[in-house]
């Protein structure tokens, strides 16, 4: 059918433009919204496309760990795992447009975790990015969390939203109905008229998928309404990913929408270009150099044995830390000074800002103050990144 007219007014309000200028209700109207209140997806890298730190890490046994950017795996005394940015080639999630996923494989099991042990996947938000939710006001909005999940275990797991500003939680469970099959889960989250998010760059909200935990977070009742933090209500149905080395769990297409939606009204996932996605991830982490003989920045000899690197970077959330993999002579400088000098470590100057960075270090050799150099990596295993994660 040829279109004779498109009603631009409908496009501006969010209504679907149809042939001959009619009107058609949108998914947003079903949630009481004229249009999506956020121009960009609230979840950054929900399609797991960006993995600046690497695509596979084996032997993960503690700490806070990344493969795909923005999704952080927290582990304490509960098994050992391999983390992978998995390339999808088939399945329901692939057919829905997702080509990568965050995946975890259990490699050393722990079927009897102690009370305080945990294995949790978290996504964290800045408060200033969540003001459209209107939390803590009489106009607080409901939310809808959607994601694709796959596991060898057909069982039920728990997740929660944790309000770090006000120590409040709301929870939900989801069930993997069929093993080894991508399934889409859509979870409605209650509005909360108590406890506003701070309007700043600090941590306000986390989404937590409890992959396995000890008894400290179990034994209660899943809170379907927001409540003051009660740890035993956070992981009521434990997925127990760590109980067998055959276990795996994967997730992609993570989407958080303002408003209450069903499977038939949920707006489509907002796919971003890789470049846009990467740029948003770089507010929290930037891989500056990786591998041998990669340029870091210009440098100069400050005098004595001290060398300074000066660089401008995309604006980060806060003054970043340097996060780097190093060893003997992993770094070097060369240039107008005539000689090449190797370096073992780098330091963040306290004068650095969110976008203007001064690294400095000392070498075993002296140099001529004011001479210009360039800094570069000097080992295939060298990695240099800046981190301002939440």
């Amino acid at each position: 059918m040829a279109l004779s007219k498109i009603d631009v007014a409908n496009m501006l309000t969010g209504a679907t433009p149809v042939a001959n200028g009619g009107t058609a209700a949108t998914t947003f109207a079903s949630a009481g919204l004229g249009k999506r209140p956020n121009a960009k997806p609230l979840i950054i890298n929900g399609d797991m496309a960006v993995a600046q730190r690497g695509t596979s890490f084996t032997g993960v046994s503690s700490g806070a760990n990344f493969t795909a950017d923005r999704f952080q795996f927290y582990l304490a005394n509960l098994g050992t795992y391999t983390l992978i940015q998995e390339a999808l080639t088939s399945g329901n999630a692939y057919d829905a447009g997702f080509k990568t996923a965050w995946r975890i494989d259990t490699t050393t099991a722990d079927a009897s975790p102690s009370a305080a042990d945990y294995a949790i996947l978290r996504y964290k938000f800045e408060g200033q990015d969540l003001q459209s939710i209107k939390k803590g006001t009489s106009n607080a909005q409901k939310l809808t969390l959607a994601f694709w999940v796959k596991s060898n275990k057909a069982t039920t797991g728990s997740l929660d939203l944790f309000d770090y500003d006000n120590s409040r939680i709301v929870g939900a469970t989801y069930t993997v109905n069929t093993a080894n099959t991508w399934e889409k889960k859509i979870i409605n989250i209650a509005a909360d008229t108590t406890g506003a998010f701070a309007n700043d760059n600090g941590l306000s909200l986390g989404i937590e998928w409890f992959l396995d935990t000890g008894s400290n977070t179990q034994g209660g009742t899943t809170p379907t309404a927001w409540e003051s933090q009660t740890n035993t209500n956070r992981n009521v149905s434990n997925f127990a990913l760590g109980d067998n080395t055959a276990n795996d769990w994967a997730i992609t297409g993570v989407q958080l929408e303002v408003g209450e939606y069903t499977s038939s009204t949920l707006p489509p996932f907002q796919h971003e270009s890789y470049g846009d996605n990467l740029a948003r991830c770089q507010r929290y982490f930037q891989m500056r150099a990786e591998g041998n003989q990669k340029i870091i920045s210009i440098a100069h000899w400050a005098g004595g044995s001290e060398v300074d690197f000066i660089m401008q970077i995309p604006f980060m959330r806060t003054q970043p830390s340097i996060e780097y993999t190093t060893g003997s002579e992993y770094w070097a400088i060369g240039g107008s000074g005539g000689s090449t000098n190797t370096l073992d470590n780098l330091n963040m100057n306290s004068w650095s800002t969110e976008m203007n960075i001064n690294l400095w270090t000392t070498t075993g050799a002296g140099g001529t103050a004011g001479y210009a150099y360039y800094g570069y990596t000097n080992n295939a295993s060298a990695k240099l990144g800046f981190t301002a994660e939440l």
Partner: protein
Amino acid sequence: MFENCIIKYVKRNDVNVCIRVTYPSNDNGSHKELSVPLDEANTDYQNILQWVADGNTIQEAD
């Protein structure tokens, strides 16, 4: 969070300007390090302050 790490101040011109966190070595002899600014908005610094509150001590600079 900082299991088996060495956490030490770094001085510049006799003033502590950052904290170096040295992680245990990998099989190939390399290791991860963090150089953390003394900025309370920085999460790594927050984690170090929590680590100190838990009863640990940052080593003085060399």
